[in-house]
């Protein structure tokens, strides 16, 4: 197939509209009578052709659009299928390949906004689909071809966050030949992984594992490293972001970048007030446990309890944190198998942990509370009774869980290995979670045994609480600065969960790693490589085409009142030498604020004109 020249569509030519109604398999077809909707579309004004496709986005669907444009000389195309947020570019490109300006295409959403939300009312859903198409056709009749401006892309990247994700993304971009600014707020690279002892599956030291990555980043000529630094402001749009970075004790650095990768990572949830955390000695989170292992400062242990899903899955947060089952299983095996090696702690018998190793992540007031509480504990109760046990003796590890999520190939095997190594897995229900308390100087866990239907209790030396990953405290600030959304739980939200998992909806900004939800190192590195390759596309191309979506002032209607200048959030309106308003096209983002404000109706928003929007409203409101 050859690319056809884009036809010059005469704005005065009578519209010849083609309507393509998609079944989307049974996603739409199962809940909307699609053939009848396509038949109905044929009755709408200026519609010369209408059909239904099993999948309009599949090759034969796209071919039917191209053929329709040629055979029926269509000068407007309406596709009624899924959401424009994912599929508009595909259909627009298809129209262009058949010589139709992409602004003569209209998208009608009859899946997300119709068939999927009215699954039990086929008749009404069908009625609604007809209505939505009627609106789309009314809009299509008024569409005009538009020319897009080419905007140069600065071939420099910015990566925010110097953990595994950020480093991987920065290095990938650097290896592709693009200069990259890597901004890390801490004084060294490595992020959350610096807390960890050994890593699951490989059982290698975390520090050793990421060392080569850190070295490569430091050695790369293309990576400009900014430690102890934060991004202070970001202005602009894809290809042209003006970034200000602030470093401790140094002057702000201003730079221009073309694309941005966000890899700001996550924190561990602090289970304040849960399971005796901060109340009794030797109760730690999973990460605190890792830090203790890494520093070889664990107390002597005979009985260890892990409690899973502390604060997650419908308690403090709604989601499953994905990694904690596997981390707990790894540590359980470590304790049982590798006790001596891992701890080397005969001399440390009876130590009570009194430093909180994750201080940087805990707000000051919480730290203060913890200090006070600890002091009180020590003053009133004295140290816990020394546990007289050598490392050679049998160690009991019990993992209290709601379900074990040992997904995938390796983790299931590790889970089996833990069971073979006599790690006990005891199930609890959310209604009846285990309880942690002190009996004299002895830390105890009581629980209801779901299989035996009996209340049980056991003495323990340490309780490890598996708490979920939570978003960074400054996620909101960051999301406002970059104009990118957060999901319900506060994580950064990708453009599409399946099809665009590392893009933000905003062009030119990409996301990877644990700032978009819990992930392990493998997953974070995969996402980072993906985000880097996505970010490289516009930089390699060297330009992007700016959507023709700006305001246009009609000189004849404009009275020069200046209201639009006041309301424009981007300073994109100004007065010309005649005292009338004009749009600075390069600065205009097309929000339409000015258009809605203009008292003279002198402002038109390209591709979202008053006439088009009013026609849509009129189409659905008029009596059939």
């Amino acid at each position, binding site marked *: 197939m050859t690319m056809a020249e884009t036809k010059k569509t005469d704005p005065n030519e009578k519209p010849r509209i083609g309507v393509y109604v998609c079944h989307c398999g049974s996603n739409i077809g199962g809940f909307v009578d699609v053939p009848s909707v396509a038949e109905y579309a044929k009755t709408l004004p200026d519609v010369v052709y209408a059909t239904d496709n099993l999948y309009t986005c599949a090759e034969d669907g796209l071919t039917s659009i191209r053929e329709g444009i040629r055979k029926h000389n269509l000068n407007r195309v309406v596709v009624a299928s899924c959401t424009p947020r994912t599929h508009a570019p595909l259909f627009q490109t298809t129209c262009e390949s058949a010589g139709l300006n992409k602004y003569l295409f209209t998208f009608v959403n009859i899946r997300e906004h119709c068939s999927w*939300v009215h699954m039990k009312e086929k008749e009404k859903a069908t009625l609604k689909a007809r209505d*939505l198409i009627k609106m789309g056709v009314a809009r299509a009749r008024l569409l005009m071809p538009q020319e897009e401006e080419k905007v140069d892309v600065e071939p420099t990247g910015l990566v925010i966050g110097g953990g595994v994700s950020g480093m991987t993304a920065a290095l990938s971009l650097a290896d592709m030949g693009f200069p990259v600014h890597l901004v890390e707020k801490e004084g060294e690279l490595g992020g959350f992984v610096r807390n960890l002892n050994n890593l699951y599956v490989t059982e290698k030291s975390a520090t050793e594992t990421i060392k080569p990555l850190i070295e490569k980043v430091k050695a790369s000529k293309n990576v400009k490293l900014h430690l102890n630094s934060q991004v202070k402001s970001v202005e602009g749009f894809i290809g042209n972001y003006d970034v200000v970075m602030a470093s401790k004790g140094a002057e702000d650095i201003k730079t221009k970048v073309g694309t941005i990768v966000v890899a700001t990572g996550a924190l561990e949830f602090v289970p304040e007030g849960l399971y005796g955390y901060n109340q009794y000695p030797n109760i730690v989170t999973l990460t605190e446990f890792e830090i203790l292992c890494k520093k070889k400062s664990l107390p002597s242990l005979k009985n260890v309890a892990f409690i899973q899903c502390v604060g997650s899955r419908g308690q403090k947060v709604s989601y499953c944190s994905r990694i904690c089952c596997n981390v707990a299983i790894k540590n359980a095996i470590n304790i049982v198998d590798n006790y001596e090696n891992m701890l080397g702690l005969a001399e440390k018998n009876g130590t009570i942990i009194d430093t909180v190793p994750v201080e940087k992540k805990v707000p000051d007031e919480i730290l203060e509370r913890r200090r006070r509480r600890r002091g009180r504990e020590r003053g009133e109760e004295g140290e816990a009774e020394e546990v007289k046990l050598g490392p050679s003796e049998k160690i009991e590890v019990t993992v209290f869980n709601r379900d074990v999520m040992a997904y995938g190939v390796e983790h299931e095997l590790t889970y089996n290995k833990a069971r073979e190594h006599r790690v006990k897995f005891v199930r609890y229900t959310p209604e009846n979670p285990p309880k942690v308390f002190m009996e004299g100087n002895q830390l105890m866990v009581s629980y209801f045994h779901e299989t035996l239907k009996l209340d049980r209790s056991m003495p323990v030396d340490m309780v490890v609480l598996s708490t979920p990953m939570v978003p960074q405290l400054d996620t909101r600030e960051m999301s406002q600065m970059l104009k990118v*959304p957060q999901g319900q739980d506060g994580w950064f939200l990708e453009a599409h969960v399946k099809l665009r998992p590392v893009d933000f909806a905003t062009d030119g900004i990409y996301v990877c790693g644990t700032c978009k939800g819990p992930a392990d190192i493998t997953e974070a590195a995969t996402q980072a490589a993906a985000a880097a390759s996505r970010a490289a596309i516009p930089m390699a191309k060297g330009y992007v085409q700016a959507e023709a979506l700006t305001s246009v002032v009609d000189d004849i209607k404009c009275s020069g009142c200046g209201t639009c200048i006041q309301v424009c959030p*981007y300073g994109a309106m100004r007065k010309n030498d005649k005292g009338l308003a004009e749009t600075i096209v390069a600065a205009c983002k097309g929000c339409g604020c000015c258009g809605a404000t203009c008292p003279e109706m002198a402002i038109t928003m390209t591709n979202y004109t*008053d006439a088009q929007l009013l026609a849509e*409203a009129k189409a659905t*409101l008029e009596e059939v």
Partner: protein
Amino acid sequence: MSSEAQPQTTAHATGVKEPDPKILVFCCNWCSYAGADLAGVSRLQMPPYFRTIRVMCSARVDPEFVLRAFQRGADGVLVAGCHPADCHYIGGNYRTRRRIALLKMLIQQFGFDPDRLRLEWVSAGEGEKFQKTIIEFTNTIKELGPSPMARGDE
């Protein structure tokens, strides 16, 4: 409440007195339209009487659009935008908020219950909030009954 000049009910609803409400929803492209998409992806069921018009920003919703909608017989108009401080276009939603407050007063003067116009913040992650908003607003509109325009009270 007069009952003359009842608009046509939908064909299949023969025998049901109350006509289906007509609700127009303006969704901003970046937050609320995405929130509505998420509701769909999550298969959150809701009453099928609303029709969505996509605009880039809730601030694009010219007061004229709302007034024309009521003039043409809409029973309710919902404007959905990004949460305060989350607007894709810096602060368009603040202008929307002021505009809708004024419009509510205005439509009251034309004999419309101000509850027929509603502004709601729905983020891209709030599929459930979109569903809840549609259910609540549909109920409100059903309670208020057909628009005074449709009833011919003019």
